[in-house]
């Protein structure tokens, strides 16, 4: 009654499958996790000892039947693995269950085999200690299994008598025993190492999530602080209607507008755009805004105010940072605008009587570029129903899915066609048109609008 090669193969596959299932299930239990994470509570340890002791007993019977009739068993597998991941106590515990059971089955190899099973748990536990309780790599565990089974065979030769019989048994089973146990240990080692990596990844993910939460909170706080830098409301200007809107492309941005009270009937109107967007631009925005504010108050002319502001700003402008800015001094009584343009998009002036549009350009350069600058100052008288639209390039450079820009022309046309609207309504109209134009596209740049109408 021989056992053929296909039979051995099928046996091997069956046993391997059972080990894989056992390994997968056991490693997903809380008891396993507790012991693996060195949370040594008695209950988990006892359960693991019982489980792997049970595996050991199974291993006596569930080995591979060889042609000679002997069985290449995997009794040592349970204790080896238990020792490797749980330490000597757990290993020896499992080993004793399997070993004592084997002893009482009898036979002339009973003694060396029982001893080997207990030692398997002990050696596994010693490796655990040597590796400072860290589970070994797959090749290391497999090598241990090979060594352990060789040791097991050695014990048989040493203890079992008659020697010839012992030698015959060893010759018969040594390769299959080493092979089967090594395979079993390798399977466990793979599954356990995967589990360890899984848990490590989960822990890292959790850490990143907490970090992200904290950063998002800080960003939100920064956003609120920057919001508070913009005027809370538009000032009441006698004879004028004024409205404003600003939205950064990201949580914070580099655009700003400002209304600066200069004198009884004089207000400074600022619109500006710091290069770039996001946090670097926002920090520079805070700096620029204060430099302009501080220098605008008390200065009689627009060009002087901005020239001095530039002196301050350029000292702190590193890495090529600059800010384009349009500043106008509005005389409410005279209905007059004195203005300078430091590299900014020229505001649109729509004349109420003719319907014609003028661009308020003036010779100048963005702030922060040169230490000393000269700005051309121009003057403009405003008549009834005149509208001035101040904007940043987030309006004109808004793109649609074809990467076409909204453009200055479209803006001019839109303003010309809507002179009848109030300042706020015109702001809303421009917003709506740009949104409709760039539908679906993420906001490309910080978007700012200020509309001033003479009533």
């Amino acid at each position, binding site marked *: 009654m021989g056992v053929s090669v296909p039979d051995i193969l099928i046996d091997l596959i069956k046993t391997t499958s059972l080990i894989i299932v056992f390994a997968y299930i056991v490693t997903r239990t809380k008891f396993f996790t507790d012991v693996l994470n060195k949370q040594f509570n008695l209950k988990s340890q006892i359960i693991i000892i019982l489980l792997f002791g049970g595996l050991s007993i199974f291993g006596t019977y569930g080995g591979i039947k060889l042609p000679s009739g002997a069985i290449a068993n995997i009794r040592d597998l349970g204790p080896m693995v238990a020792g490797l991941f749980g330490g000597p106590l757990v290993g020896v515990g499992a080993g004793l269950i399997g070993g004592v059971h084997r002893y009482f089955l009898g036979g002339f190899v009973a003694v060396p085999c029982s001893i080997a099973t207990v030692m398997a748990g002990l050696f596994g536990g010693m490796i655990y200690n040597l590796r400072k309780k860290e589970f070994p790599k797959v090749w290391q565990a497999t090598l241990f299994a090979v060594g352990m089974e060789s040791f097991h065979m050695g014990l048989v030769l040493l203890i079992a008598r008659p020697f010839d019989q012992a030698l015959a048994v060893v010759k018969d089973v040594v390769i299959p025993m080493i092979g089967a146990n090594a395979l079993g240990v390798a399977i466990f080692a793979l599954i356990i190492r995967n589990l360890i990596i899984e848990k490590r990844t989960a822990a890292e993910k959790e850490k990143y999530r907490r970090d992200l939460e904290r950063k998002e909170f800080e960003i939100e706080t920064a956003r609120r602080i920057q919001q508070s830098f913009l005027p809370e409301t538009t000032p009441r200007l006698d004879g004028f209607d004024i409205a404003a809107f600003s939205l950064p492309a990201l949580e914070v941005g580099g655009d700003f507008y400002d209304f600066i009270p200069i004198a009884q009937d004089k207000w400074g109107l600022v619109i500006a755009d710091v*290069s770039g967007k*996001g946090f670097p631009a926002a920090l520079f925005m805070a700096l620029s805004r204060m430099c302009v504010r501080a220098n605008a108050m008390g200065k009689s002319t627009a060009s002087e105010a901005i020239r001095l502001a530039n002196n301050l700003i350029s000292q702190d402008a590193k890495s090529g940072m*600059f800010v384009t800015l349009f500043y106008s001094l509005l005389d409410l009584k005279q209905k007059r605008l004195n203005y300078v343009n430091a*590299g900014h998009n020229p505001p649109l002036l729509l004349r109420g009587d003719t319907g014609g549009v003028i661009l308020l350009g003036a010779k100048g350069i963005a702030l922060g570029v040169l230490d000393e600058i000269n700005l051309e100052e121009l003057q403009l008288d405003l008549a009834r129903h005149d509208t001035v639209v101040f904007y940043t390039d987030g309006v004109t450079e808004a793109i649609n899915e074809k990467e076409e820009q909204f453009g200055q022309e479209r803006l001019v046309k839109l303003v010309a066609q809507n002179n009848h609207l109030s300042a706020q309504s015109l702001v809303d109209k421009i917003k709506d048109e740009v949104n409709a134009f760039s539908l679906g596209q993420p906001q490309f740049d910080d978007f700012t609008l200020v509309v001033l109408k003479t009533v």
Partner: protein
Amino acid sequence: MDIIERKMANGVNVICICGRLDAYASSEVEKKLNGLIDAAQVRLVVSFDKLEYISSSGLRVLLATLKRVRKQQGDIRLACVKPSIKEVFDMAGFTQLFTILDMEEAAVKSFDE
């Protein structure tokens, strides 16, 4: 956005920026230019022949590297600047800072004078 780099016979480096120079692309260009300046390559021509759009970040990068390169007796000269791009430079007042030439060859040769 792509960057094509060429070294000319007279030692001038030509950097051709293709596509849209937005905030993200600007950091790539900045790295490239700074790398060249670190390697003492301070005679640079930036060609805008294939440039479709330049953002304020792009201007910032050009300004920063211009300041750097001038400190080392070098220069960045611009070539093939389309009218739409030139408008952006004009508006910001940057035209007075840079030497702008129509043809790339002319820009490269200008370093020989």
